[in-house]
């Protein structure tokens, strides 16, 4: 049986549809991230899972049973929020004990569990502190301990690290990974930060305009984006306007500008011959050579507009003949890059099989 299943979920607010048609299955113990920009429906989906919102249509099944008619406090789901939601009048220990106290567990059991949770989030000795006496990162760790204290089958996390600075964020990302491995709890994690999603998740569901565009592991999404939106949102990408000459079996022959024809590029979406499309290239998969290379091969002619040294790699901004701004990422020490200057004409080569065409 599927562990967690979301079926045909829809949420309307008046005439605005926040979530259109979300379908998803999650395995027990999986770390699933909802990735998307604000307003894409990822948080709404999470809030429906938590029971704070009722869906307009659709169902959520946990171990085969519908959750929709169960109120929040009976769902037995854990959640860590974006904002700090520790109870300010209770100490750290009392915060973690709260879900156990409302469940009327015996005191000895509560004390043992609180100690265990403090150990899990590495905050032993902090049980008498008040939330106001702790840093943001510590507060979110206590929130995590409180959400896991009652062994929920599912833990929801709604951008829990967005209020923290970068260094602390990375530190707690490691903690979350460790805790996921130790507890084997199923996590649904919402973020708009692709790096965070890639670092944490087993699988990522990319949300856009109320639907899931694609579900897959990080490498799958990066290597094989299903839509132009996924390509743009996961990793950096360059886009060049093109025309589809012919398409079959998921591959297309395309024309870029007036003279360049590229054959056998993976194609997404439907486009009739002659239709407009966009060629997607990854900046680090482009090769750069000075001057112009002969016609016919997969090479774009471009003019260098800027060069930025970024430590381990060099970022070259260039303008394609057809006008698009392109970015190229070269490893530090790249031969051609060392003598490059603005205004130089370069040739950007790529493997057609690693590029993608999205119909416009």
């Amino acid at each position, binding site marked *: 049986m599927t562990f967690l299943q979301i079926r045909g979920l829809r949420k309307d607010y008046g005439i605005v549809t926040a979530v259109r048609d979300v379908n998803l299955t999650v395995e027990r113990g999986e770390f699933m991230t909802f990735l998307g920009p604000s307003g894409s429906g990822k948080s709404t989906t999470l809030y429906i899972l938590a029971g704070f919102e009722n869906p307009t249509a659709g169902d959520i099944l946990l171990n085969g049973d519908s959750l929709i008619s169960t109120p929040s406090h009976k769902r037995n789901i854990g959640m860590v929020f974006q904002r700090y939601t520790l109870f300010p009048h209770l100490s750290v220990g009392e915060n973690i004990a709260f879900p156990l106290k409302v469940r009327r567990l015996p005191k000895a059991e509560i004390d043992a569990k609180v100690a265990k949770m403090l150990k899990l989030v590495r905050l032993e000795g902090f049980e008498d502190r008040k939330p106001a006496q702790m840093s943001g990162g510590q507060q979110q760790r206590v929130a995590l301990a409180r*959400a896991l204290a009652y062994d929920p089958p599912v833990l929801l996390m709604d951008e829990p690290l967005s209020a923290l600075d970068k260094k602390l964020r990375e530190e707690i990302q490691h903690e979350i990974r460790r805790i996921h491995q130790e507890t084997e709890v199923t996590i649904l994690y919402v973020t708009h930060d692709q790096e965070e999603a890639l670092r944490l998740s087993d699988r990522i569901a990319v949300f856009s305009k109320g639907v899931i565009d694609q579900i897959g592991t990080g490498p799958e999404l990066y290597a094989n984006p299903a839509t132009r939106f996924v390509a743009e949102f996961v990793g950096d990408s360059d886009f060049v306007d093109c025309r589809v000459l012919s398409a079959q079996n998921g591959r297309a022959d395309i024309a870029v500008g007036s003279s360049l024809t590229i054959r056998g590029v993976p194609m997404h979406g439907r486009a009739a011959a002659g239709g407009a499309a966009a060629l997607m290239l990854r900046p680090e998969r482009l090769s750069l050579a000075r001057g112009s290379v002969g016609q016919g091969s997969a090479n774009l002619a471009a003019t260098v507009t800027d060069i930025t040294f970024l430590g381990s790699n060099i970022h070259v901004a260039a303008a394609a003949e057809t006008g698009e701004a392109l970015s190229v990422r070269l490893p530090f020490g790249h031969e051609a890059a060392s003598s490059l200057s603005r205004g130089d004409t370069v040739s950007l080569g790529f493997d057609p099989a690693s590029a993608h065409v999205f119909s416009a």
Partner: protein
Amino acid sequence: MALLTEQEKIAAVGSIRPIRSRNFALTVPALLLLVVFFILPVVSLLLRSVMEPEPGLQNYQALLGSTTYLKIFLNTFSVSALVTAVTLAIGFPVAWALAIMPKRWASIVFAVLLLSMWTNLLTRTYAWMVLLQRTGIINKTLMGLGLISEPLPLVNNLVGVTIGMTYIMLPFIILPLYGVIRKIDPAILQAAALCGATRWQALSRILIPLAAPGMVSGALMVFVMSLGYFVTPALLGGTANMMLAELIAQFVQSLVNWGMGGAAALVLLVVTLALYAVQLKLFGTARMEGR
């Protein structure tokens, strides 16, 4: 404070004297007004309580030694406590609703609250008399519906005083409570729900403790104001439950006994100040910062 440090800077340069004295001069009219029309009369009233009819504490002896007067004290406190409890019970849900309802709706409710505060107290009290009397709308409606066979005694008794005073005191508890509840992040209550807390548990273990400072300050304000209330108990209350302010008025106006009136006033003042001190001690500086 900023003004003061500014002045201190000027003082360092050496040109402070004229500015400080001029600023002080600005407060003189207000201070004079207070001294002449408030402090002097209060002091003279208090003096008369130990000077009339002859020097000594006999007025206080009479006041605190008589069961009649002690009954009035007791009644004053119990009516005030009752009004405070009812006001809190009604005001808390209203303040909570105000804090979570859409801004536009909240401003309408506020307008209604303030409008009623701005309406003349006497008018409002007479309006309650009309509503509550034997042939008033409330009794007529209940009888018309067949719920009661004869009019309920709603006025000239404790019921009338409680209704009338609760209505007048409500804004004084709703406003401070609203201020405190509005600052509570709704996500905290969502977190409590996901932790497994029922609505009642979230209310009693999270919301009420977090709103406690607002509840205490509002309740103390209402209680203290109720202790000295005159118009509403005088009009809506009966002779059986006279309150302290009525007693003072009777001493001064009917009996022209300034000594006894002054003594009763001082007792009221002392109790009020003591309660204020309690509030300051409990919630003056250390609020909820986990001390």
